[in-house]
């Protein structure tokens, strides 16, 4: 199937500053595509170029195979849900949603039908006559999405739409958005700096840093096989240990406090100074089995961070002061662990991922 959005060598420069740096990617029809990146990495700039509010410095941007460079925002088959929603305060819910349809010259009865259907879809049946100021944060959110979705765009762009909501509502809207996307089948392009939003909702996630994409992958792959040091550090929780290479193939590294570990090299690099990344759940406590490819060490418990099913311990490794975060299995097996306990632990070499150290 042809991609909905196809971007080639897209660049945006503000004076000497490059906000979006030579991007190449495609978004598949009907998918939920997220762009995840820290604040200021150029996400909004990219989205505004797709919507037509900003002109690329160079590069091409095709939607459904059509070049968009000469098309003004009101003629593009994409719609944008603004970060601050930008609902029209002088219109009620119905008029807000009908605004785009009226511009397309859709008939009155047809408009009423489609608006009502849309209201039902976003669970706001009966709210049509309400004023915008009478709605709660989550309801406004849904009106903003309905207003764009009712136009049946080729691509719906969402710029951190959950940013203004409180945590609880955000969790709820995350699930609702994913459901909604699956129901309507519209291609969503979702921007966020919250990795959990991106991982939960998306089919594919692009991790963006300093105007570039570091990796485009499925959430699972992104988490399990981060391609770069940045992705490994940005997506999901992780422990980082500075190490030096002892031997290559098979790779052996040693920490500054003398612990030798077998590890996996991710990026090719001739550098002997590496950073070792270990996920909290990759560290296995009191493991009896395991072969030669299993690293063993002892941990001294410093602190227990109880958080229901998400409980972790902070422990120092070996004789060092380096603190590791270790996720506890969900059974009660380790409920007896207390501060100061020394436990045997281990980690498989495939979970010890080494990346070249970043020049500070």
């Amino acid at each position, binding site marked *: 199937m042809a991609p909905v959005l196809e971007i080639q060598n897209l660049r945006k420069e503000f004076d000497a500053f490059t906000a979006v740096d030579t991007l190449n990617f495609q978004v598949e029809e009907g998918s939920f595509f997220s762009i995840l990146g820290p604040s200021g990495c150029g996400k909004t700039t990219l989205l505004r170029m797709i919507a037509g509010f900003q002109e690329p410095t160079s590069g091409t941007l095709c939607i459904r195979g059509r070049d968009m460079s000469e098309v003004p925002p*009101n003629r593009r088959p994409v719609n944008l849900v603004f970060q601050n929603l930008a*609902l029209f305060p*002088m219109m009620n819910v119905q008029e807000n949603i009908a*605004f*785009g349809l009226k511009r397309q010259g859709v008939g009155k009865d047809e408009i009423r039908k489609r608006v009502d259907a849309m209201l039902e879809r976003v669970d706001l049946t009966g709210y049509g006559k309400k004023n915008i100021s009478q709605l709660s944060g989550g309801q406004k959110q849904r009106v903003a999405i309905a207003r764009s979705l009712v136009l049946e765009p080729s691509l719906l762009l969402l710029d951190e739409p959950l940013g203004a909501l409180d945590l609880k509502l955000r969790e709820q809207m995350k699930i609702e958005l994913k459901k909604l996307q699956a129901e309507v089948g519209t291609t969503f392009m979702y921007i966020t700096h919250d990795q959990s939003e991106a991982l939960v909702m998306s089919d594919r996630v692009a991790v963006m840093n300093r105007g570039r994409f570091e990796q485009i992958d499925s959430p699972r792959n992104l988490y399990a096989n981060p391609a770069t040091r940045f992705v490994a550090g940005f997506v999901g929780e992780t422990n980082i240990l500075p190490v030096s290479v002892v031997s290559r193939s098979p790779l052996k590294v040693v920490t500054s406090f003398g612990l030798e570990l077998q590890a996996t090299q991710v990026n090719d690099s001739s550098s002997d100074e590496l950073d070792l990344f270990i996920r909290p759940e990759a560290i296995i406590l009191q493991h009896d089995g395991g072969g030669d490819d299993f690293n063993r060490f002892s941990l001294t418990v410093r602190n227990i961070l109880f958080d229901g099913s998400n409980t972790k311990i902070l422990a120092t490794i070996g004789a060092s002061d380096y603190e590791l975060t270790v996720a506890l299995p969900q059974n009660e097996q380790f409920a007896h662990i207390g501060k100061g306990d020394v436990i045997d632990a281990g980690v498989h070499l495939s979970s010890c991922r080494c990346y070249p150290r970043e020049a500070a």
Partner: protein
Amino acid sequence: MKTHFRLGLFIFLTPVLLWLLLLIVVPHLELLMMSLQGKDDMGKAVWTFANYRHFFVEKIYWYTFVRTALYAITVTVLTFCVTFPVAFYITKVVSPKFSGFLTILLLMPFWVSELVRVYGWMILLRESGVINHLLVSSGLMDSPVEMLYNDISMLMGLVYTSMLFMVVPLISALEGMDDSLIEAAHDLGASPLTIFFRIIIPYAAPGITSGSIVVFMLALGNYLTPKLMGGKNSLWFTEQIYNEFIASFNWNQGAAFGFLLLALSSVIIWFGLKLSRQELGRALS
């Protein structure tokens, strides 16, 4: 608690009520009584509607009355047309760094009195004025023409003197408007024209209404500008009132005219509010 609140309200409200009563209600009652009085053949004061009847019978009064109303409406519309682009430019186009400076620049002429400003225009426009001098000495015209003392110069003067009262509410209304509303409308398929009429104007409507009311009332009640810049034939209704009070010394007739003007402005403003579906309270708040 409750009596406390009452007492506070009373204390704060008293000066306002006194002001309203002494300076507005009492004089108007006096004027109303005056307008309903006249002298009979014997020179004795009697109650009569003669002053009002007089207005409806004499054509010249009617003519001035309608003319004044129409011109005041024209001034209001023109003032809006002139100031809206300015307010829009200051609040939305220019960078916020300069908008404060530009606003001050805009308000600067209003630090001098209306009289001085009107004389300024007269110096520019009159037959021996600056513009005529430039045109003649540059050879564009053979002989100077009189640009003052006609309806157009009067309209221009009125628009100029009322601009401030329109531009300030417009700026404050537009300042409150989030730019993303415009972008959102554009994104949903609206053309610039639609954005103007469907988003910007409705959003600024309270500001437009309050500005229009003030400008309309000021134009209607203006005496100085029509007198100095208008021609012999451009009579303003306030001049009629002045004539009755001062020239003819007919206070009863003048009071009646004053009341008619009050009724006129009330009716037109009421009609305007109905037409634009605005509420007075909301527009002025």
